């Protein structure tokens, strides 16, 4: 028996010793979930963009790392016609596509690839349109289908976009993930083989890393793209270790199993900051968390009910408990870090008595029963939706409303709510181009009520006209005024309870260098390197 013990003790000692990390230039990132696809055109989810567009692809225009400033990407330069309707891009030459086990490119990037990438999403007659479901949510939510009249190839390295109306956020929008450039040559070869959907599973791009292997719910492996046009990356290999549980992500960071982690829990931030090996970068997030009411379902068709719920929720308590005091109470659709933001005049202040009175006026003195959908996952704007729902449930019970908390697996959650199956839903949004329009149009326009991204299905003509006008307007001062008028209507109609703007935290080991915290909530590993990890 004693012998067995000592053997076990030796074994334990042996096993518990810190294992040396082998390959020095492999970076492991503990990510929060599995991507739905590797084609950013097909998704609106940040998880998918992190795994695809942000490592594998380039866009015509890109954001300068860590900022909302636009810099040339695959486009070298551009010209805008005087009427604001024509954009002509000069394309970069000698840009190489990934050469992998499953595809060897025969030519460099050119205008055909741009044409292909946009036509797949806008041209319903294009054979590619229907592949993998044929739903281009982002493209439609940004109203690109009605905005772009035509995309014309002038020659191999010049391409022209013709718009139906002037559009001030157009250039910023081209820097967004769904506007990533895919390889037409690869697409053609797959179409020939009769396996077009492979394009969205085994991606080929021009970006800093190339795709190696993906196992759902386990990992994604990438390798540096040796022919990257901005120069080969310092990292040889990049691994996304898919780790859904945030406390497990933190544990993995601490044991050095990963060097960078996604979305930390607010409750863990304090202990992370105390850890000498970990750096926690932070930045006011470009996000808004909200509770949206489905206006297609009673009693939310009644404006007084919606206003009542706005008065009923103690958002300060939510901020204290869920966000651990970090972040800000949201009184506006857009976060303060967007240029057009100004403290609104009409805000809802916690007032259960007033809520009760409004409910009584609406004929619901006895209260009612509702479902609150709460996301199963942590998002940059909401660290714990289920707990948030429990707080809301408690507030509602004080005004006689019984709330049931409902949740689904993340993909199902998004889909079902897009189809309008919910009564009310907790969700949020992270801006992806820094323009105010990027909040108003995809979330609250009538067009978005069609696609379902407007989870309230709130379509207010007056509001919609204002945000459309603001979109065409080129003068920032006038734009700002238009958005303010829109916000007043939004507040009065109350399709949402705006909850909070979260601070964004990015914890990583101090051995990681060159990692810029992305204001849009994503992560880019281009330009990152590891030091001191050598044996």
């Amino acid at each position: 028996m004693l012998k067995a013990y000592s053997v076990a003790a030796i074994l334990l000692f042996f096993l518990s010793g810190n294992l040396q990390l082998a390959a020095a230039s492999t970076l492991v990132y503990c990510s929060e979930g599995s991507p739905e696809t590797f084609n950013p055109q097909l998704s609106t989810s940040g998880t998918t963009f992190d795994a695809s567009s942000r490592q594998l692809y380039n866009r015509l225009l890109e954001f300068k790392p860590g900022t909302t400033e636009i810099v040339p990407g695959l486009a070298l330069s551009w010209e805008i016609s005087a009427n604001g309707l024509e954009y002509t891009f000069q394309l970069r030459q000698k840009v190489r596509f990934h050469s992998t086990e499953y595809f060897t490119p025969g030519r460099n990037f050119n205008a055909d690839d741009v044409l292909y990438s946009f036509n797949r999403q806008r041209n319903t007659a294009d054979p590619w349109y229907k592949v993998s479901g044929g739903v281009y949510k982002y493209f439609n939510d940004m109203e690109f289908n009605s905005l772009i009249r035509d995309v014309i190839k002038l020659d191999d390295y010049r391409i022209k976009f013709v718009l139906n109306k002037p559009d001030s956020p157009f250039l910023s929008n081209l820097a967004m993930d769904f506007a990533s450039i895919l390889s037409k040559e690869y697409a053609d070869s797959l179409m020939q083989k009769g396996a077009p959907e492979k394009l969205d599973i085994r991606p080929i791009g021009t970006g800093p890393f190339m795709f190696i292997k993906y196992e759902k719910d386990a990992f994604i492996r990438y390798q540096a793209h040796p022919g990257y046009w901005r120069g080969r990356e310092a990292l040889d290999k990049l691994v996304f270790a898919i780790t859904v549980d945030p406390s497990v992500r933190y544990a993995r960071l601490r044991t050095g199993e990963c060097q960078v982690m996604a979305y930390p829990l607010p409750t863990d931030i304090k202990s992370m900051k105390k850890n000498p090996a970990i750096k926690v970068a932070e930045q006011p997030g470009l996000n808004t968390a909200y509770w949206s009411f489905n206006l297609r379902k009673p009693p939310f068709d009644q404006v007084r009910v919606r206003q009542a719920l706005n008065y009923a929720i103690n958002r300060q308590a939510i901020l204290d408990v869920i966000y651990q005091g970090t972040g800000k109470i949201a009184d506006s659709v857009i976060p303060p870090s967007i240029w057009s933001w100004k403290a609104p005049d009409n805000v809802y202040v916690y007032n259960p008595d007033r809520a009760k009175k409004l409910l009584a006026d609406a004929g619901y003195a006895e209260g009612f029963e509702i479902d609150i959908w709460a996301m199963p996952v942590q998002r940059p704007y909401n660290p714990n939706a289920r707990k948030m729902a429990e707080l809301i449930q408690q507030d509602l019970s004080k005004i006689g409303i019984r709330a049931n908390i409902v949740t689904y697996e993340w993909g199902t959650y998004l889909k079902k709510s897009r189809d309008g199956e919910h009564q009310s839903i907790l969700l949020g949004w992270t801006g992806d181009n820094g323009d105010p329009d990027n909040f108003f149009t995809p979330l609250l326009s009538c067009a978005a009520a069609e696609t379902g991204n407007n989870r309230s299905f709130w379509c207010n003509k007056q509001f919609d006209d204002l945000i459309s006008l603001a979109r065409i307007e080129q003068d920032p001062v006038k734009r700002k005024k238009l958005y303010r008028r829109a916000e007043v209507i939004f507040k009065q109609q109350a399709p949402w309870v705006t909850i909070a703007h979260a601070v964004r935290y990015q914890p990583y080991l101090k051995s990681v260098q060159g990692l810029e915290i992305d204001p849009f909530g994503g992560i880019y590993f281009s330009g990152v390197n590891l030091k001191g990890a050598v044996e």
Partner: protein
Amino acid sequence: MPQLLLRRLLLIIPGFLGITALTFFLIRLAPGDPILLLAGEHGVTAERYAELQHQFGFDKPLLIQFADYLWQVLNGNLGTSVVTQTPVLEEFGKLFPATLELAVIAIIFATIIAIPAGVLAAVKRNSFIDHSITVVSLVGYSMPIFWWALLLILLFSVNLGWMPVAGRLNFIYDIDPVTGFMLIDTLIAGDQDAFLDALHHLVLPAIVLATIPLAVITRMTRSSMLEVLKQDYIRTARAKGISEFSVIFKHALRNALIPVITVIGLQTSILMTGAILTETIFSWPGIGKWILEAVYRRDYPVVQGGVLLIAGLVILVNTVVDLLYVVINPVLRQQ
């Protein structure tokens, strides 16, 4: 005896048939139209719906549908995952080695500890050691293993930092899945660090998964041993002056082990139950986690196929154990 074996083997057939029927009809009870589920994001037109209904055979009577399904299953076609579009059998094949590896390590671990502990408790009957072993095995038997796993993580990973919290292997190692068994694959790759890392990752999940079998086997060994020690031939052996060690290990244990081996074999079902919880907590990429996630995602073909495969496996193992029992049991062998 051959007749007995044959009868036992033949019993597998109604078992498989029944499992297939059960999973088939259970899933048919699930809410939601399978065509709409398969169509995914944007639904289908009425024409396309009818077409699909015909294509999947949903317009046929339920019994015919079942016969079709059975035929498919017999041909090795268990359907395709709605989420990943991969055949269910292929996904199972890819993930099963991870579960098997964990389960095998766990059961070996449990057996190595449980048999000596059970013997010790029986030999020192009613002593302090016996009582301690009995209490510990009762606690183990009553353990909510999902909580046990969290406690171990709290102690060994969070506080002491000795053990990894999740996964099978540190992600810096990229090992080709030749056999699917990480311990073997790392050796094939000749990567000693990776091998140790894989072993390291196995420790906590294996302890958790072994907990209940450990308790069950200990209890079984103890009572079986007590039973045997009362037998006449043991008394005879002792009377002959054979050393106590020899009596216990050569004579008693050999006979006491027969029911114990059966019990070990019958742990498959318990191990599968444990695997669902253990794999979920430790993010172990095996079939337990796979099937649970399929439930969350409403991926019914995976749920249906997965349950069928797991239940089939349990039936198979139980049959093998039964047969083994017949083979090794001298009483039955003579019949």
